[in-house]
Each structure stands twice: as structure tokens, then as C-alpha cells.
């Protein structure tokens, strides 16, 4: 009995170590390539174009600088929050995502020379009666988390007496204004101007308030060489006129006109599917991959922890109870961010987002599985175990031959339920920048602002996936019950 328990514990330990140690070895292989994180829902600074290449002022700048200075970069479209956190935890080398240089941020980051001067403007409905900021008294104003627009809104909200509503991406923020929940939104002038020209359906209602500059950032005290190269490269581009060309490319009349015509073709679901079929399919496969691997890991982990909870050993039961308590108690999103950003800060080794995502789901879904595995076994009448033991069968054999087959029947519906939840929960992992179905949807919407149609497509795909998963589970259930 003790042997089984210690073996299980050892296995669990190895499992965890295996996940945390593995990624550190890959860090050295890519020394010359810098990992640059960004938020591709921020046109015209960063966005995915019709061919789903990452373009925009920031992208063209960093690429031109890398070419000029002779270093390689790897762009990861992880979203603004994840990008900032990845850099501060050392998961990425730098962040370029229309990031304003602020004193608060300077405490954690080293910034490059400014590459763009930004201003904040307010967007409102074109047919509204907004005249000045004083009209905002008692109303709501939408902003996007962590942006300068949000900081600006918060700095003047008491003066003008409005409430600030925070959104995670631009599309939701704009929609809140369009459907009248919020009186307006504060956003970077270049961003909003770009949106207005490409048919966003809002107008700019205030003059630009200059609030500072955009800079490229690295973790404070780290990547000094990269920072030096960026500043030198930026200076060269400004000198040789390349910089002005890039700015003109994305804010000039020509650029936005061409964009507007093309965008008109993609206002139907069929058109959207044609245009984005490739990325949607790859997002779908990422979701499936994530779901299948996570379900397998979570099931093994959950069964292991569930068993530890029923073996006649106080330590094992304590471990099981603690694991269930902690990982069932933590919100999935907190766990994901903690594992992806927190663990590297503690251990100093990077974790690929996919591995972090799988570990997150394994721990969270696994804790739920452990709880019902334990419950399922305990639901089997204790007389069954007593009778088996009274015949001389050891605990393990009695469990395997008598108790477990009865417990599994009790557990099956919970398993199916948990698998479906796991599939849906993969969408939460978009916070650590995994390019799964939901994140893919966000990126497409950031470009074309077709929120309703794109989310319809995404929702239907999820329903189809869940139907397939349910049918598959029911089939397995029938096979087991017979």
C-alpha cells in the first residue's frame, strides 16, 4: 500500500518537474532571435491584414530596424496585457504595441527613444448631440484596459463627473458606444482616425490632447544591446526618410482609402469566411489540439489525485484535498496568468504559452475530475470493499476489480460534462496569447470590426465541436456500460 502511494507521489513530482524544466533548454537555442510581443488588435500600429500578416506602423518599424541593425525577431501576437506581463516576467525580450511612455511604466521597463507622438481623442456616435466634455456628466465612457486613453479618462472623470467602463479589446469598446451604453470612448488619435476612415461608424468629437509618446520597451535593466540597436536603427530610419514613409503608409489618405474599398467586400458571413478561412481553420486546430491534450492530461492528473484521496493514508488524502481545494478554488484566468507570467518570474525559465495553457487546464479541470473521481469511489457502498477485503484481496485488487468498475459508472456523466467544459475553457487561454479560436476571432475583429458576424461564426464552430465531443462521449459511455 505505502509503495503505491509513494510511487504515485513520485510520478506526480516528475510530471510537474518535467513541465517546468523542459522549456529552459530551448531558451539557449534561440539566442540571436529576439522575441517581441505585441497586440495585433491595435490598427494602424499593429494589426493582421487581409492575408493575416502582422502589419502596421509598429510592425514595419521593428522589422526595418531589425534589418538595418542585423538582428532577428520573432513576433508573438499575444495581446497587450499578456505582452506587457511577458516582458516583465522575462517570457519575451521586448514589447512594441503602441505603448505610451509613462513614469509608472518606467519603474518596470526601459523605454526606447519615442517613435511616435500620440494624442487622445474622444469618439462618439455621428448623429449624437455631444458638444463638449461637460455633456458627459452622469454618463458612462468606454475605454480599453491598460491604454493611455484609459489613464486619460480616469484623470478627468471626477472633473467632468462621468463613469469609466473598461473593455478588454477595441471592438467591444466601440460597440458599447455604438449601441448607446456609453456616451463616448477615449482612444489614441491615430487609432480612432484609422477606424473612422475604415467605416467604424463613430466620429471624432474632441481635439487631440497630447499625452505623450510611444516607445519600444524591454524589462528594466535587461536586453541593453537590443535597446541600443533599436535606438540606433530608429535614428537611421528617421534620417534616411524610411520612417516618414512608414507613417504615411498607415495614416495617409491613400492607405485608408484603399483599405475602405477592400473592406466593403467582407461584410457578409460568406465573405468573412472566404477572407479568413485559413486563420479560422488554424485557430480551430489549435483549439482542438489544446482540448485533446488538456483532456488527456487533466483526466490522468484528476484520476491520480482522486485516488490519492481514497487510499487509506493520511498524507495522500491531505495532498489530494489540498490540490483539489487550491486548483478548484482559483479562477481559470488567474491560474493561467499566474502560470504563464508568475512561474517564470520565480524560476527564471520560460514556459511556452501552449505548455502553460495545458498545465493550466490540467490543474483546473483535473481538480474537478479528482473531486468527482473521489466522490464516485466513495459513493460505492463501503460493504463492497469490506467483502472483497474479507476474502483476502489486497486493497489495490479490491479497488480495481470491485469498487472502481462500479464507481466509473457513477463518474461517466461527470466526465462528459467536464470534457465539454474543458473545450469551452480553452477560450479563456486567449489571455496568454494562444492563437486558438477565440483569440483568432478577436484578431479578425480588430481589423474589420465585424464583431457580430465573426462571433456568430466562432459560436457556431464551438457548437459543432461540442456536438461532436458529446456524441463521441455518449458512444464511449454506451460501450462502457454494456
Amino acid at each position, binding site marked *: 500500500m505505502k509503495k503505491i502511494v509513494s510511487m504515485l507521489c513520485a510520478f506526480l513530482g516528475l510530471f510537474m518537474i518535467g513541465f517546468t524544466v523542459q522549456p529552459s533548454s530551448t531558451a539557449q537555442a534561440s539566442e540571436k532571435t529576439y522575441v517581441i510581443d505585441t497586440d495585433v488588435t491595435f490598427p494602424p500600429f499593429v494589426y493582421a491584414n487581409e492575408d493575416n500578416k502582422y502589419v502596421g506602423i509598429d510592425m514595419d518599424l521593428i522589422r526595418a530596424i531589425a534589418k538595418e541593425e542585423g538582428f532577428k525577431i520573432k513576433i508573438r501576437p499575444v495581446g497587450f496585457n499578456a505582452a506587457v506581463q511577458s516582458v516583465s516576467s522575462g517570457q519575451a525580450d521586448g514589447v512594441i504595441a503602441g505603448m505610451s511612455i509613462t513614469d509608472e511604466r518606467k519603474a518596470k521597463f526601459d523605454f526606447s527613444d519615442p517613435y511616435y507622438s500620440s494624442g487622445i481623442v474622444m469618439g462618439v456616435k455621428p448623429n449624437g448631440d455631444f458638444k463638449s466634455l461637460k455633456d458627459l456628466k452622469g454618463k458612462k465612457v468606454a475605454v480599453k484596459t491598460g491604454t493611455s486613453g484609459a489613464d486619460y479618462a480616469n484623470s478627468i472623470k471626477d472633473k467632468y463627473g462621468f463613469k469609466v467602463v473598461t473593455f478588454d479589446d477595441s471592438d467591444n469598446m466601440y460597440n458599447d458606444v455604438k449601441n448607446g451604453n456609453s456616451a463616448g470612448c477615449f482612444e489614441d488619435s491615430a487609432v480612432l482616425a484609422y477606424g473612422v476612415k475604415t467605416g467604424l461608424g463613430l466620429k471624432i468629437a474632441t481635439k487631440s490632447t497630447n499625452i505623450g509618446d510611444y516607445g519600444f520597451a524591454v524589462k528594466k535593466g535587461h536586453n541593453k544591446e537590443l535597446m541600443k540597436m533599436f535606438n540606433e536603427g530608429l535614428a537611421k530610419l528617421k534620417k534616411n526618410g524610411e520612417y516618414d514613409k512608414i507613417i504615411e503608409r498607415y495614416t495617409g489618405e491613400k492607405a485608408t482609402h484603399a483599405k475602405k474599398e477592400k473592406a466593403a467586400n467582407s461584410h457578409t458571413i460568406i465573405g468573412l469566411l472566404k477572407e479568413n478561412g485559413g486563420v479560422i481553420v488554424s485557430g480551430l486546430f489549435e483549439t482542438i489540439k489544446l482540448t485533446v491534450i488538456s483532456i488527456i492530461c487533466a483526466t490522468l492528473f484528476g484520476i491520480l489525485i482522486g485516488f490519492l484521496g481514497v487510499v487509506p493514508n493520511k498524507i495522500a488524502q491531505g495532498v489530494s484535498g489540498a490540490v483539489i481545494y487550491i486548483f478548484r478554488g482559483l479562477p481559470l484566468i488567474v491560474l493561467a496568468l499566474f502560470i504563464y507570467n508568475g512561474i517564470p518570474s520565480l524560476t527564471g525559465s520560460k514556459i511556452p504559452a501552449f505548455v502553460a495553457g495545458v498545465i493550466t487546464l490540467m490543474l483546473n479541470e483535473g481538480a474537478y475530475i479528482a473531486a468527482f473521481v473521489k466522490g464516485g469511489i466513495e459513493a460505492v457502498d463501503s460493504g463492497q470493499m*469490506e467483502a472483497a477485503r*474479507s*476474502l483476502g484481496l489486497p486493497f489495490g485488487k479490491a479497488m480495481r476489480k*470491485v469498487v472502481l468498475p462500479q464507481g466509473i459508472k457513477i463518474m461517466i456523466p461527470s466526465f462528459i460534462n467536464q470534457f465539454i467544459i474543458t473545450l469551452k475553457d480553452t477560450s479563456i487561454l486567449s489571455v496568454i496569447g494562444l492563437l486558438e479560436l477565440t483569440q483568432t476571432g478577436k484578431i479578425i475583429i480588430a481589423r474589420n470590426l465585424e464583431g457580430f458576424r465573426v462571433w456568430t461564426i466562432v459560436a457556431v464552430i464551438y457548437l459543432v465541436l461540442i456536438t461532436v465531443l458529446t456524441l463521441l462521449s455518449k458512444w464511449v459511455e454506451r460501450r462502457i456500460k454494456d
Partner: protein
Amino acid sequence: MAELKVNVTNLVKNYGSNHVLKGIDFKVANNEVVVLIGPSGSGKSTLLRCLNKLEEPTSGTIVIDGQDISDPKTDIDKARENIGMVFQHFNLFNNLSVSKNITLAPVELGKMSEEEAEKQARNLLETVGLEDKFDAMPASLSGGQKQRVAIARALAMKPDIMLFDEPTSALDPEMVGDVLNVMKKLAKEGMTMVVVTHEMGFAKEVADRVVFMADGNVVEEGTPEEVFDHPQNERTKSFLEKVINV
């Protein structure tokens, strides 16, 4: 030593502050049939369950067949192979057929091959009068049938002592006779048996010795005639009056 099948000395069992067994001395000779009687809560089932360590004794020694099973170093699984047990609620393995219920332990513990175990199962089912239930599932059996299968299952390990924990208490009255008949047959064949029961008729007819327990102590013991017809202790007398007059 060898003629004593069971030798319990100063057995104490506490559940927290609840003293269930208060220092019991209890012996069973080879081939002897001992019936434990007494009011509920007197500790008779606990004593019985200590004999194969389904209950962990608080203190005292339990020697079965010369082996001290209260010693933590004793391989209790090995010891249990020779101690059959029949439960009040049958506890047939619900996921297995009648035949698999009977063959599981002998096959899993390497006592015999599957064919041998099945042959034995047929013989045992014949002994308990259920040869036609070989492939049945437990859920399809009546209580009396279940208990007879449970007896067959215990016998399949060829134990040299059988413990019965209120084997007829959960049965409909018309089923009780079948089960008692099987037990009588076993007794006649010389099986050493310890039986906790409220069937006084069975005790009178089959028991070599009757032990009356109350409040965690053995109050009185003797042949059925001595205990039933000439009880010495007041507690015994009042218990028997209540039970027999019903």
C-alpha cells in the same frame, strides 16, 4: 494451542470516547459453533469484525489458528484467506455475475485456475441450492438467494473458520429458513463458526456454546441449555424474556 481456533484476550475497542468492547476474553475451539447473542449495541458485531480485522482493535491480542493477527507485522490479507465472512447486507459484488463473485478471489489470489474455480463454483452453488443462478447478476436475485451466494463466495476460499454477522436480519421471513439450512449443513460438516444472530431457534439447535454479551462485556456463556433454560445473570434473563416471548 492447536485445538483453539480463536483466542482473544483483553480485547478493547474504543471509538473516541465510546467504549464498545471493554476487555473481552473469547475462545473458540476447533469445529465449534459459537453463537453470539445480546441486545443491539452490546458489541457482538464489533467483536466479530475484529476477528478478521475489519475493525482495528484498540488494544488486546487476537490469535487465529496460532497466528497473532493483532500484530501489525502479520500479513492480514494472507490471514483473511482462511477466515470467511458473511455480512448482514450480503455485499455481493454488484458489477459481477454470481459465478464471478465466487471465482474472483480464488483466481485473483492464485489459489486455482479459472476452470477449477468455475467447477468449484458450480459445486458450491449446488450445495446452497442455486445451481441455476450461475450466470445471473446479483440485482436479479432475492435476498435469501443473495445470502446463499455470499456464503458460497466465502466458502470458495476454503476457509477453516466462518464468521456470520446477522446473516438473516435483512431477509424476508420466508427466506430465513433457506439460509439457516445452509448454515446447519455447514455446522454438521464440522466447520468452525462464529455467528451473531437473533435467531434463537438456530442457536438452540446448532450452537455448541452460546455467548451473551451486554455493554461491551461477555456477561454469560455456556451450552444452549445452560444459557436459555437456566440463565444465571439478571441481564441475560431479562433479554431472553423479551426475545423469546415475542
